[in-house]
Each structure stands twice: as C-alpha cells, then as structure tokens.
C-alpha cells in the first residue's frame, strides 16, 4: 500500500518532469484577455467637424448681432471693409481666447491710467470681444472674400494698412500697433524687418486719414465744438475734452469711456487743435511722428495675409505657438484624420489662451511674481494634453490592429475621472490638475 503511493508519486514525478521540460514559459494570458474593455467609438470623427462649424457659426452670429446694434456711421466709409481684415484676425484670435476673456475683461475694468503697454493690451483684448465692439466686427461676412482674394494684389495690402490706420485714429492709441506687433512677434509670425516696411505705409495712411477726418470733423463737429469751447473757457478742460471726443468714441464700449479719458486727454488736445484750425498741417506734423515712433513692431500684414490664405489661422497660430514652446505634439501634419483635428483644435485654443496669458503676464511688471506659476500651469497642462493624446492615438491604433470595435470614449472618460478623483484624494494630483485633466477628457 505504501509502495502504491510511492509508485504513484514516482509516476507523477516523471510525468511532471516531462511536462516541465516541454513547457517553455509561464502560461501567458491569451490575447483576448489583454483587452480589458471593448471601446465603442462613437463616430467622433464627425463631431469635431460639427463642433468647428458650430463655433464658426456662433462667432458669425455674435458679430452680426453686434453689427445690427451699432448705428451706421457716415464717417466710416470705404475704410470699413478694410478694417475688417484686422477684425477677422482679431475675432479668430478671440475665439481661441474665450477662456481668458473674463479674466482679461476683469483686468480691463481696473484700468490704471498709465501709458505702459500692458494696460493698452487689455483694451485691445476688450476690442476682441465681439459682443462689445460691434463696429470692428462689422461686415464680417465680407472678409473671407476679401481675404481669400489675396495673392500678391497690392490692393489688399493697402486695405489692411488702411484698416489699421483707421484703428489707430479711432482709438487715438498708438499702442494698437505695439499690441498687434508684439503679439505677432511673440507668436513668431512676423519678423522685425517686416515691421519696418509697413511702418511707413501705415504712417502715410494715417496721415491721409487724419487729414480727411479733420475736414469731416470741422463740418460735423463744428456746432458741438462751439458749444463746448464756451464751456472749455469755464472748466479746466478734462470734461470738455471728453465731450469733444464723445462723438467719435461713442462707438466704443462704455468701459473704455471714463477711464480712458485721462490717457486720451493729451491726444484729444492735439486733435482738438487739429479740428480747430490748421487741420491738415498740424495733423500732418504730429501724426506721422507719433505713428513712426510707435510703429516699431508693425507686422507685415501683406505677407501675413498671404500665408494666412493657405491655412486655417487657428492651426497656424497653434503651430507657431507650439514651435515657440518648443514642444512637439507627436502629430505629423494637419492632414491627419479629422478626429485628430479636433484634438488639434482643442489644443490650439488652449495654447493660444496660454500664450495670451503668458504675454499679458510678461507685459505687466507688477505681475511678474505670478508669472512663474501661471506659465508653469500651461506647461503642465500641455504635457498632460500630449500624454492623453498619445493614449487616445494608441487606443485607436491598437483596437484597429486587434480588429476590434473602436474604444468607448465615454467609458474611458468615466474611468479616468474616477482615477483622477482617487488620486486627488491621495495627494498624488492637485485639485486643479485633476480638473485640467477632466476638462481635457471632456473636450475630446
């Protein structure tokens, strides 16, 4: 009996040895178990396009509604269309900066009456808000046609130059150029040499514009000027100068009105002189100088528009931004499937917003301390965004190779949300990082 067991034991031992010598490896999980979940990808390729269209439509709608509110002014004649190019640029950029809008407009309220560029940059951003600044966004619909015609035609370049000159004139703010130029320089879209070329062009245009408008103002503003000059003799001048300028500036948002007074005062004075008498001469003396001084960084819009023509502006800015930030997203080119385009668009918006934030931080010296956490924040978000995109790409590719149905994005999103929450709880991720990650996933 005991020997029976011994015999069995030996038999089993021999069998097991044979078995062991034949097995080469620890049993590995079969391929089917490797794929834990079957992701059902819901036609996400279509959604991005729709989202884009919806967005473009909403921008147009906002612009049109703003346009309908604004009273058509006779002063703005042929330059209206010309100005739209800038507007297009601004509105497109605006679409990307939606995240920062509220933040920026809040800053605009606390306007500090100094001449530094940072404050002016705030105002420029306010202009980008299509709901406030109807005039700038007027005739948005015509722009694509005007723009798309650009292909070496001097006419368009002049149009753009005109528009900008008008802008400067209307705002009485030379900083318009600085803002635009600095931004574009920062984005790497233009070079300094290009700036010089247009400097003179715009100066000339501005010169003409002032001369033209000076004549108009003489006629229309004559009555109100008479009234107000009487008051001028009584008051010190700040209020009247404001009144003098209420007409041309009535188009602008009220926010700018009061607080901008002090800054504009000087220019108002100058222009008042222009209105009063030697319109052409004085204006000619003053404005070109001012224009030239401030048009240091003016972009070469002509070339810019040419390049704009061939691309989606969003994508181009994004590309420049990316190269500036020195990080690659891992996506080969823009002709990738539309599903990737959505990711790209989201990324460009986030990046443009970040660039805007960074730019503004840099401009304002008082905010330098806050600069590092804020600029780090964009860097972190971008890294996370890249990582998430790589995962999505891999999931798509992986499921394709396996021959399975596409992954389920919503399931993945739920899973990640859950994980993020648990990580936040354990102190592995900070709350704001977790929110960023969730936001990225919900934007997919």
């Amino acid at each position, binding site marked *: *009996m005991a020997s029976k067991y011994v015999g069995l034991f030996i038999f089993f*031992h021999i069998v*097991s*040895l044979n078995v*062991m*010598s034949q*097995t*080469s*490896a*620890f049993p*590995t*999980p079969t391929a089917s178990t*490797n794929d*834990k979940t079957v992701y059902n990808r819901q036609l996400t390729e279509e959604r991005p396009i729709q989202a884009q269209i919806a967005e473009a439509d909403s921008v147009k709608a906002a612009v049109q509604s703003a346009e309908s509110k604004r009273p058509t002014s006779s002063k703005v004649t042929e330059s209206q269309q010309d100005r739209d190019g800038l507007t297009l640029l601004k509105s497109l950029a605006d679409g990307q900066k939606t995240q920062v809008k509220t933040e920026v407009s809040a800053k605009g309220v606390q306007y500090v009456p100094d001449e530094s560029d940072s404050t002016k940059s705030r105002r420029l951003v306010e202009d980008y808000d299509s709901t406030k600044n109807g005039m700038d966004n007027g005739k948005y619909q015509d722009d694509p046609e005007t723009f798309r015609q650009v292909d070496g035609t001097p006419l368009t370049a002049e149009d753009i130059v005109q528009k900008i000159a008008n802008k400067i004139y209307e705002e009485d703010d030379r900083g318009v150029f600085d803002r635009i130029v600095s931004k574009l320089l920062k984005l790497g879209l233009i070079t300094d040499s290009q700036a010089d070329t247009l400097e003179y062009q715009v100066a000339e245009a501005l010169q003409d514009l002032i001369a033209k408008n000076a004549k108009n103002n003489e006629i229309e503003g004559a009555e109100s000027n008479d009234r107000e000059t009487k008051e001028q003799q009584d008051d010190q001048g700040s209020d009247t100068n404001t009144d003098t300028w209420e007409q041309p500036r009535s188009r602008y948002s009220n926010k700018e009105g009061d607080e901008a007074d002090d800054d504009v005062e000087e220019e108002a004075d100058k222009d008042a002189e222009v209105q009063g008498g030697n319109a052409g001469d004085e204006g000619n003396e003053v404005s070109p100088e001012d224009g030239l001084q401030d048009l240091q960084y003016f972009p070469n819009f002509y070339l810019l528009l040419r390049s704009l023509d061939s691309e989606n502006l969003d994508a181009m800015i994004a590309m420049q931004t990316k190269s500036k930030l020195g990080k690659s997203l*891992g996506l080969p080119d823009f002709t990738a499937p539309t599903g990737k385009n959505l990711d790209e668009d989201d990324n460009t918006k986030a990046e443009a917003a970040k660039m805007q934030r960074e730019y503004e931080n840099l401009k304002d010296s008082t905010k330098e301390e806050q600069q590092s956490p804020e600029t780090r924040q964009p860097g*972190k978000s971008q*890294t*996370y965004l*890249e*990582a*998430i995109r*790589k*995962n999505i790409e*891999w999931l798509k590719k*992986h499921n394709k190779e396996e021959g399975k149905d596409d992954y389920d994005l919503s399931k*993945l999103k739920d*899973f*990640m949300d859950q*994980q993020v929450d648990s*990580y936040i709880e*354990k*102190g*592995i*991720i900070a709350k704001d*990082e977790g929110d960023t*990650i969730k936001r990225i996933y919900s934007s997919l």
Partner: protein
Amino acid sequence: MKLFLTVLLLGAAVASATSAGTDGEISYEYHRYEELRKALVSVWLQCPTITRIYTIGESFEGRELLVLEMSDNPGTHEAGEPEFKYIANMHGNEAVGRELLIYLAQYLCNQYQQGNETVIELIHNTRIHLMPSMNPDGFEKAASQPGEIKDWFVGRSNAQGVDLNRNFPDLDRIIYVNEREGGANNHLLQNMKKAVDENTKLAPETKAVIHWIMDIPFVLSANLHGGDVVANYPYDETRTGSTHEYSASPDDVMFKSLAKAYSIYNPVMSDPQRPPCRKNDDDSSFKEGITNGGAWYSVPGGMQDFNYLSSNCFEITLELSCDKFPDEDTLKTYWEQNRNSLVNYIEQVHRGVKGFVRDFQGNPISNASISVEGIDHDITTAKDGDYWRLLAPGNYKVAASAPGYLTVIKKVAVPYSPATRVDFELESLMERKEEEREELMDWWKMMSETLNF
C-alpha cells in the same frame, strides 16, 4: 547550454531592439518634486491601462513617496505573476537613479505603445514597481545647492538627518548568530508589524518601505545609488565586524548571476579597464562590474540585506555614477548606459523555479515553505499559494512544507531562463491518518473474512 546561448542572443536582440526604438520623447533633465510628480502623472495619462500611481506614505516633510506601477492589470496581484521593484534616491544627493527611473517609466510606456514585444511581454508577465525617490526631502536639499558642484554629503540623509541606508533593522546580526547556533534562515523580523510601528528610531521613509515590503510579495529588487559604478550584492555587513571581508549569503551564486545580469549591459560598469572613480579608491573587490557588499565595505542596517532577511525579496545595490549629482547634460548618457541593464535586470525575475502549493482539495496554502537542498535560505508562498524561487542553472531538490502537512520533495533541472513551473499538492496530516486508518480497517476486514472471525 543551448538555452543559455538563446537567452544571450535574446538579450542582444533586446539591446539592439531597444536602442533602435525612439528615445526622442524623453527629456533628460532633473526633476524636482513637482516635476517628478508631473512626469509620473504624464506617464499614467499616456498609458492608463498598464500603469497606476500610488504612494506608500509621506516623507518627514510631507512629500509623497510615489510609486509608478506597471503591469497588464495594475493595482492587483495576479496569482503566479512575480513582483519586482526599483527604488532610487534613498540618499537624496545621489540623483542619477531617480532620473533613470523616471526615464524608464516613460520608456516602457512608449515602447509598449510602439509594439516592442520584449517590453509588452515583460509588462504582461510582471508587476513592476518604480519608486524614483525614497528620500524626496534630501533631494530637494541637494538640488537647492547653488552652483554646479554639489557637496558630497548635503541631502544624503532624510530631513531628520537619518541615513536611510543605515536605518533598517539590522537582521544580519541575527542571521550570523543563527548560522552558528541554529535558528530560522528566513523572515527574521519577528512580529514585524509591531516591531516596526513601535520602533521610534525608524524614519518615516524607512517605515513606509518596510510596510511596503510586508504587503507585497516582492521577488526581486534593486536599489539605485551614486558615488561609484558597480553592482553590489549581499551580505553588506561583515560577519566578524571587520571593515572589509567577503560576506557570502546562502544565495551567493544566484546573487552574482543577478549582479552580472545588470553590469553586463552597462559598458562603464563592466569595463575591466575602468579606472576607479577617485584616485585613492579601493576597488579591489570589483570583478566584472560586481562586488560583494562586505568585501567592499561593511554596511549595517542597510535596505538590501533587510529585504533578503525579512522577506522573500532578493535585492542588490546598484551604484551608477562616480559623481553623485552630476551635470544635467550628462543624464542622457547615463540613461543610454543603463537602459538595457535596467530592462534586462527586470527580466531576471523570470528565473529559477516557481509555481503553486495547494492542498489535495486544490486550495492554496499560503506561507508554506519552499526549501532548496544545499541552500540555507527558504522562501515562503504568498496568499494565493504562489511562490518564485530564484535559482541559477543546475539540478535541485525542491521541498514544499507547511505545518500540518506532509512535506513533498521534487527534483528539478533548472535552466538559465525562463522559470521552471513546479506545483506542489500537499497532503495534510489528518488526511494521511485517515488513509492509514482505512487501510488498517480494510486489512482487518480481509483477515477476518479469511480467517472467519
């Protein structure tokens, strides 16, 4: 032999395959605590199905002791799947290891997604834990030093001034006594939880790691240091107390094999012509890029020996750079020198003998002992009855035993790799008694029938 050559070829293939892969996505720079955290989170975001971040506790100053786990089923121990860990930067100013583990995490994730079969197989069959920094407080101190040259000592110890690699309970003392006078040859820390929690001398980082070792049935491990270039194996503390003395452990043969498996792919470490890091250094104990700990210099209370003597885990110490905190622009080179070694060392966990110990009903028997004849060091089965016994190639008699069960011995021929599967079914003593009783009854019945009474 053939198998050995095959494995060598495989290893070479690994080396060439991995060098052909893209390292382009890794940025080689020092990571402070926040950046370290961000880097691990990014890896997790890129590879969420095969990674998981967790923390084993907090440092003295409250920084999380972060671990990135990589496996095909992160968060769980799969029965039969061996557990592996890398720990770096326990000396805060020994910075290269910390960075290498971050790069390794990124690398494994990238390679997995790019279809690198070696990496995929490794991640599917192993549970890999990477702890880039056991002493994040020390690192911050070291990294905050102004200027390029970092002091040899600043940031080495934790925020309390404790050298973590001298802070572990000294079990070498106990094993040496047991060797002479008899006693247990494994799991020497009695009442482990109590001993740890009530020990006021243990730094929070040390405590956290000890708990970690107790919770997870690690099989193989390495801890990463700087200040020299060599792979160091147990025992670290000399038997007689002298400053230099070769102090072999029962698994000396296997440890040498493990240490060599690392050094062989590191061209600097394995270079026989390599001059010592400093002119007057005594590296006479270094052979082929490896050294016995005690032969180099005696280290009491170290983490390496603690692993071996308190748990089933075999750990070696890797010294990876002459300079403890070298220039950032050298990090890429260190990565290239160590990448293949780091991957190959993880693969060493799939060696020797492994399997399950169950009773006759198929239930797993946890905490059963697995002893190998001729090697005075036993290991135990984990909760699912699974075990992994690292062994160098050879013929062995492997015994599985558990209280209340009859011991079973099996003969095994072990190749270099992969691990040989040996399962045990143990008969409990009660069962045997029952059988014998039944046999006796049968015999008595037969006798009575024959003899007619």
